[in-house]
């Protein structure tokens, strides 16, 4: 990507979008991946540090059942994806967390695993949540085949032909992950254990590495099965076709509460992205190289929008908006930049007339030419949430109340007497602890509601504080009314982290969980967002990007 040092970065503060604009669900649900997305961070690092990759273990039978190890060898450490491929009966294939078997299961191992390690992992990893991993494992995941496309590619390759490109484009991946667990889940290494490693300090880097290696595994597996079936006449995947395959991901409500449960992390992601946009808008000039880079990025975005399919009515409408707006941006670029001062800001302000899809796509486009002033913000996107855990009980009731009125004005304005505003409730099912969203009027369990209805909790706290001596300390208030402790902590976090809260009612009748999911997935770097209901979505990762095996370095 072209970056220039001739651009001048002025004070960007005045160009930053306020949380009241940014933290709305509808806008978060229009988020696009940017160069600050986590998979882009991984790919930049791998190239900059000249990581090497190999596959020291490939023990696979003709049906594609067996195990494999892929190593990523960095300047200081090695990480290994340990993969187990299974023969899954069709009736057992479900992407839901309540599944008990998968087409393939994986762990990311810290180092190079011994035979003993592989045997230990083979006894546990295929069982996923029912097994145990340990501190040497950084993630635990599984994937299912895209049945139709996988079979098509095997058949074609086995007969010496390449797969049909329209079939490939319609799906976009051979396998899709259905859960990628990290951060101490099921006995795996705690985040604290690895957070000080440069290569894992940015968010979700172990998970991204695991998924990237899984993509390589999926193409190796399909070629292996085709070779076993077709013998000498079998073909391998054409490099261009292979590059258009990503690795899919299928996800449900489990992802949505994550953003609400990690307010500091959410703030840091959002604040970094907004700072990046502000820095670009503050630039005095647009160099020819950066203008060309913008045109290239727009061309890629238009190509992506053409190939992006969904049958979900909400997404169909959004895709229409996106395609229209990318066309409008293309038309605008024919006369941009002109003589205007701060040309990037002028372009952004022109773009505020676009749909939310168009605006957020424009944001991603504006960041693309500016790695030199944007990429360093990746360092600010992690969070030590323990730092913000402790409540300041020396604060007065009056100060806390004022903080709520300023930071949660959006929440205090909601009429919770209207049943539409309390129509749903978040709960955890006893089935594998799956997070779910229920209807308060129709379903049992509302008394076990999870504290994700932040707006209503904020209103409840504000009301309770009103009944107290305004000079009393929050410590006294909480001693008497411990049920507000959860919300007091969040209110104090919000004071320090303005992008910490999703500024919408998360239990309203018309709330769309997929909006939360799209925001998080865009930060991962996901493309081809394809909802399968208002609570379930498929996406693709790494589509169009190189494979680990493509990493060759000159010199």
């Amino acid at each position, binding site marked *: 990507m072209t970056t220039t040092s001739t651009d001048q970065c002025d004070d960007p503060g005045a160009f930053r979008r306020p949380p009241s604009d940014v933290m709305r669900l509808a806008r978060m649900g229009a988020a696009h991946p940017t160069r600050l997305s986590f998979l882009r961070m991984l790919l930049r690092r791998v190239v900059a540090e000249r990581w090497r990759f190999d596959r020291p273990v490939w023990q696979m039978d003709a049906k594609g059942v067996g195990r494999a190890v892929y190593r990523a060898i960095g300047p200081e450490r090695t990480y290994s994806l340990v993969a187990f491929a299974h023969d899954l009966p069709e009736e057992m*294939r*479900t*992407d*839901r967390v309540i599944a*008990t078997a998968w087409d393939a299961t994986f762990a990311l191992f810290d180092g190079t695993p011994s035979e003993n390690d592989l045997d230990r992992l083979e006894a546990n990893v295929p069982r*996923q*949540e*029912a097994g*145990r991993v*340990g*501190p040497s494992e950084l993630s635990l995941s599984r994937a*299912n085949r*895209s*049945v139709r496309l996988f079979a098509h590619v095997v058949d074609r390759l086995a007969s010496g032909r390449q797969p049909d490109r329209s079939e490939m484009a319609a799906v976009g991946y051979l396998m899709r992950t259905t859960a990628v667990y990290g951060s*101490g*889940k*099921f*006995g*795996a*290494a*705690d*985040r*604290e254990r690895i957070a000080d490693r440069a290569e894992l300090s940015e968010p979700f880097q172990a998970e991204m590495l695991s998924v990237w290696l899984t993509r390589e595994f999926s193409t190796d597996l399909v070629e292996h099965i085709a070779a076993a079936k077709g013998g000498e006449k079998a073909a391998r995947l054409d490099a261009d076709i292979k590059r258009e395959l990503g690795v899919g991901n*299928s996800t*449900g409500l489990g992802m949505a509460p994550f953003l609400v449960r990690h307010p500091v992390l959410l703030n840091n992601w959002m604040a970094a992205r907004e700072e990046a946009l502000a820095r670009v808008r503050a630039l005095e000039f647009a160099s020819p190289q950066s203008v060309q880079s913008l045109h290239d990025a727009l061309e890629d975005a238009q190509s992506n929008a053409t190939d992006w399919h969904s049958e979900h009515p909400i997404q169909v409408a959004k895709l229409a908006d996106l395609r229209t707006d990318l066309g409008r941006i293309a038309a605008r670029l024919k006369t941009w930049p002109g003589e205007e001062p701060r040309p990037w800001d002028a372009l952004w302000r022109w773009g505020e007339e676009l749909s939310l899809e168009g605006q957020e796509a424009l944001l991603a486009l504006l960041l693309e030419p500016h790695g030199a002033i944007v990429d360093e913000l990746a360092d600010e996107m992690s969070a030590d949430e323990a730092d913000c*855990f*402790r*409540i*300041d*009980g*020396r604060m007065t009731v009056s100060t806390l109340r004022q903080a709520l009125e300023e930071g949660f004005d959006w929440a205090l304005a909601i009429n919770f007497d209207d049943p539409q505003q309390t129509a749903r409730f978040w*709960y*955890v*099912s*006893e*089935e*594998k*602890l799956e997070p*779910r*969203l*229920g209807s308060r009027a129709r*379903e*049992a*369990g509302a008394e*076990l509601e999870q504290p994700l209805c932040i707006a209503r909790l904020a209103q409840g706290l504000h009301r309770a504080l009103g009944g107290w001596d305004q000079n009393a*300390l*929050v*410590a*006294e208030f*909480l*001693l008497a009314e*411990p*049920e*507000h*402790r*959860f919300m007091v*902590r969040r209110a104090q976090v919000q004071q320090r982290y303005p992008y910490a809260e999703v500024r919408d009612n998360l239990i309203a009748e018309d709330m769309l969980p997929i909006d939360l999911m799209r925001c998080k997935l865009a930060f991962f770097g996901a493309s081809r967002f394809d909802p*399968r209901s208002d*609570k*379930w979505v498929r996406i693709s990762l790494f589509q169009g990007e190189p494979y680990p095996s493509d990493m060759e370095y000159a010199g």
Partner: protein
Amino acid sequence: MTEDGSDPIQSGFTPPPTDLALLSSNEAGALCLKAARGAGMSWGLAEEAGYAAAWLYTRGINGPELLLRHLNWIADRAYGNVRPAGHENPVPSDGTALCPVALGASLSDGCTIPQGTIGPVQVPVLLLPFVHQLAVSAASALRLRWNGGHVSVSPEGYVSGDMDDLTALDVTELTLQTDDTSDVVPVSQIAPVPIRRSVLSDLNAYAMQTTVPASSASREDAGSAAGDND
């Protein structure tokens, strides 16, 4: 809840099949948070309980087992009876014993180092994570003393003193004062402590009280509108 570790559908957290298990501290904290909520604590206090258990576990002390001991005691008691009588008055309202989580959170909130006797406090070792927070505020090690021993916590989170004695105590009165003389024991030298299967099962039983029983409607509503065999 099931005892069959191979059946993940029927239980949330699956206790490992072995009699002793090592958990990550994230896992220990998350399980204890849910268990504390299931045992009746408010969400905010349950977060404190999870923090306390994980803090101890990171230091080689069996925080989850100690919290379970406390949850079994507190489960049928009202918060009003186990909370400190006042923000600067750390004695039980009804004269029996204080919840160390409610007490610890209250002391931490107010940055209060009480001058006189504290308690009696139930499972007093659970107070240490909050003493650490106070030590950070005071920028000084603090010494927790009881009849027969003492333990110190430094602002860096190191503990030293009669830890085994404190861990064994069910209930005791305490005092808290600054301490400039304690030795420090780096956390990284401490081996993780295995947790008994029965402890994990009992904590899980509390945690499952925060979950909603499954129904076919809820199961279907949470998934894709189409099948996954495409």
